[in-house]
C-alpha cells in the first residue's frame, strides 16, 4: 500500500503533487488527517503524498520540508513541531510560489495562507467540561496524563488547567504526569498516583496511549466507574474501552476535516480560485479554521470506528 494515492478521476491535473508533512509521522493521530487530505484530492484528480519525520526532531522535519520544497510540489500542508523554526523555510516555499497551509500545529509568522486546527486549549477546556459534568457538584481531584515537551499536548494541559481554575471549580488538578508514549509506563504512573491520593475522581489524558494505560491501571485496581477517564483521539483501543465503560469519554478532533479542508485550500490557492485578503467572502482564504472537537461517549461511539488494516471489526 503506497501512500502516494492515485487519482479517482481522469483529470488534467493528475500530475500535480500535494504533500502532507508531519512530525512523529508514525503515530495514529495523523492518519485521519491524511485520509481527509487524500479523499479531497480524489475530487480534483491530483496526487497526494504523506511524509514527515518519524522522530520528534526539529532538524529532521525542516530538512524534509526543504527537500520537499526542492521538489517544487503543487502544495504543502504541514504540521509544525515548532512555530518559529519553520518561518524561513515556509517563506521560501511561498516566495517560490508553492502554497502552504499549516494544520494542527501552526507557524503563525511564516506567511502560511491558513492554519486549520482544533484549538488545543479549547480541546483541553472541553475535557474539563466533560469531566466536571461526569463528576457532578461535589466534583473531585483530577490527574492529567500528558506528554510534556510536546507543544500541542502542553496546550491541551494548559487549556484544561485554566478551565478548571476559572469555570469548573468543582474539579481540582492534583497532579500533572508523564505518559511517556508507552502504555506500560502510563499505567505504572497512574497506579502510583492513585495509590498516593486515594480520593482521585477523574483522569484526563491528552493522548490515546496514556488513555489506554490509564484504563488498564484503573481496571487492575477494580476502580472502574469509581474513577472517570476522559481520553483523547479515537483509535479503536480507546473506543473499545469506552464501549466497556472503562473510559467514560474521549475527545475527537476534527482531524479528518483538517486534512480535507487543507487539500481544498491548497488546490484552490494553486489555481488562484482564492487568495489572501480582508473582506470575508468565498474568494478569500480564512487565516484560521477551527475544525472543532466532538465528545465521544458510549452513545455515539459506534460512529467513530474506522476499519484499520482492512479488517472489519468483529
Amino acid at each position, binding site marked *: 500500500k503506497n501512500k502516494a494515492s492515485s487519482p479517482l478521476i481522469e483529470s488534467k491535473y493528475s500530475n500535480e503533487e500535494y504533500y502532507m508533512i508531519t512530525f512523529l509521522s508514525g503515530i495514529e493521530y495523523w*492518519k485521519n488527517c491524511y485520509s481527509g487530505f487524500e479523499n479531497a484530492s480524489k475530487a480534483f484528480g491530483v496526487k497526494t503524498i504523506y511524509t514527515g519525520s518519524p522522530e520528534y526532531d526539529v532538524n529532521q522535519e525542516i530538512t524534509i520540508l526543504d527537500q520537499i520544497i526542492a521538489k517544487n510540489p503543487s502544495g504543502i500542508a504541514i504540521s509544525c513541531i515548532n512555530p518559529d523554526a519553520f518561518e524561513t523555510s515556509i517563506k521560501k516555499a511561498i516566495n517560490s510560489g508553492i502554497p502552504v497551509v499549516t494544520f494542527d500545529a501552526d507557524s503563525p509568522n511564516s506567511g502560511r495562507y491558513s492554519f486549520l486546527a482544533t484549538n488545543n486549549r479549547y480541546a483541553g477546556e472541553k475535557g474539563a467540561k466533560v469531566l466536571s459534568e461526569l463528576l457532578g457538584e461535589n466534583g473531585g481531584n483530577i490527574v492529567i496524563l500528558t506528554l510534556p515537551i510536546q507543544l500541542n499536548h502542553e496546550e491541551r494541559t494548559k487549556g484544561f488547567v485554566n478551565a478548571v481554575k476559572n469555570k469548573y471549580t468543582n474539579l481540582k488538578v492534583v497532579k500533572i504526569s508523564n505518559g511517556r*508514549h*508507552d502504555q506500560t509506563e502510563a499505567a505504572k504512573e497512574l497506579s502510583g*498516583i492513585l495509590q498516593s491520593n486515594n480520593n482521585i475522581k477523574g483522569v484526563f489524558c491528552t493522548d490515546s*496511549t496514556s488513555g*489506554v494505560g490509564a484504563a*488498564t491501571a484503573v481496571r487492575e485496581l477494580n476502580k472502574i466507574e469509581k474513577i472517570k477517564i476522559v481520553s483523547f483521539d479515537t*483509535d479503536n483501543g480507546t473506543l473499545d474501552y469506552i464501549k466497556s465503560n472503562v473510559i467514560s469519554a474521549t475527545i475527537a478532533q476534527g482531524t479528518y476535516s483538517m486534512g480535507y479542508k487543507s487539500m481544498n485550500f491548497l488546490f484552490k490557492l494553486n489555481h488562484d480560485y482564492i487568495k489572501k485578503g480582508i473582506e470575508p467572502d468565498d474568494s478569500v482564504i480564512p487565516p484560521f479554521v477551527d475544525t472543532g472537537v466532538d465528545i465521544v461517549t458510549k452513545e455515539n461511539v459506534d460512529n467513530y470506528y474506522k476499519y484499520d488494516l482492512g479488517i472489519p*471489526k468483529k
Partner: protein
Amino acid sequence: MKESINNIFKNNLLVTYRKLSAIREMTVLISIIFISIILAIASPHFITKDNLISTTIGLSSDVIIVIGVTIVLISGGLDLSVGSIMSLSGITCGMLYLYGVNIWIACIISILIGTSFGFINGYFIGKIGLNPFITTLAIAGISRGLSYILTEGSPISLYGVPKSFSNISQSRIGEVPIVILVIFLVTLICDYLLRRSDFFRKVFYLGSNEKAALLSGINIKKIKIIVYVSCALFAALAGVLSTARFTVVTPSAGIGAEMRSISAAVIGGASLSGGEGTIIGAVLGVILLNIINNGLILLNVPVYWQDFVNGAILLLAVTIDFVNQKKRKELH
C-alpha cells in the same frame, strides 16, 4: 605448615566468598529497603496492598526482559533490540487475532516470530562475528520498523478477546496475581541455573575471556546464538503478556526498555564487560528503579524531574558499587 595455612585460607575464604558474592545484591536490597522505609514514612499509601501489587504488576514486564538482558550481558554481549522485539511480537499477536487466528495459537506464533529475531541477532553476532551493539541496534530498527509497517502506526485493539487470555494478568491466588508468582518462580529458577548449570558456566567463560573460552573447547558460536535467542524469547513473552494486560498493542510499546533493563542489570551487579552478574541482582535492580519512580510519584515530584533523578540514581548506584568493589580489589 603449608597445610594449616591452606586450611586457614579455606575457612576465611568461604566466609569472605559468601560476603563477596552476596555484597552486590545486598547493597541493592538494602537501598530498596531504605527507600521503602522513607516512602512508607513519607506517604501512608506506599505500604498498601494495592500499591505494592500494582507496582509489582507494573514492573513485571521489565523483570521478564531484564532476565534475558542480564544473560546477554554476562556473555559479554549487549542487546538493544529487546524493546522493539517486545512490541513486534505484541503487534503480530494482535494482528493474527484480528485475522481470526485463535488467540493462543497467535501467542505461540508471535513468540516464535519475536524469538526468530533473537536468532538473527545471535547469527550475526555469533556466527558472522559482528559487534553486538551495532547488530542489535540494527535489528531494533528493523523490528520496530516492521511494527510500524504492519500497523501503519495505529494501535491494535483486541476487543472481545477471550477472558481466559485477558485475565492472564488479572487472575490471582488469594490476593497475589498469578503472573507475579510465575515471574518470581522464573527468576529463582534462572538464578539457580545461572549459578549451577553447565551451560551458563560456559556463558560466564565466554563473557570473561572469549579467546580462552575458545581454547577450552567451548562452542562460543552456539552459546552466543542461544544467549540472544533466549533474550528475545523473554522479550517476546513480555510483549504477549502486556498484550493480554492492555488488550491493546501499540507499535511504540517497549520504547526505552533496553536502556532501563541494562541500567537495572548493571545496578544489580552485571558488568558491561561481561563475565559478571546475577539474575536476582538484576531483578532487584528493576525493583529499585521502579520503587524510586513510584516514590517520585508519591512525593509529587514534578514530571520534569524524572529523567534527572533517574540519571542521578543510576550514576550514584554504579559509583557506590564500584567503590565497594575497588575496596575489595585494592591493587587493581
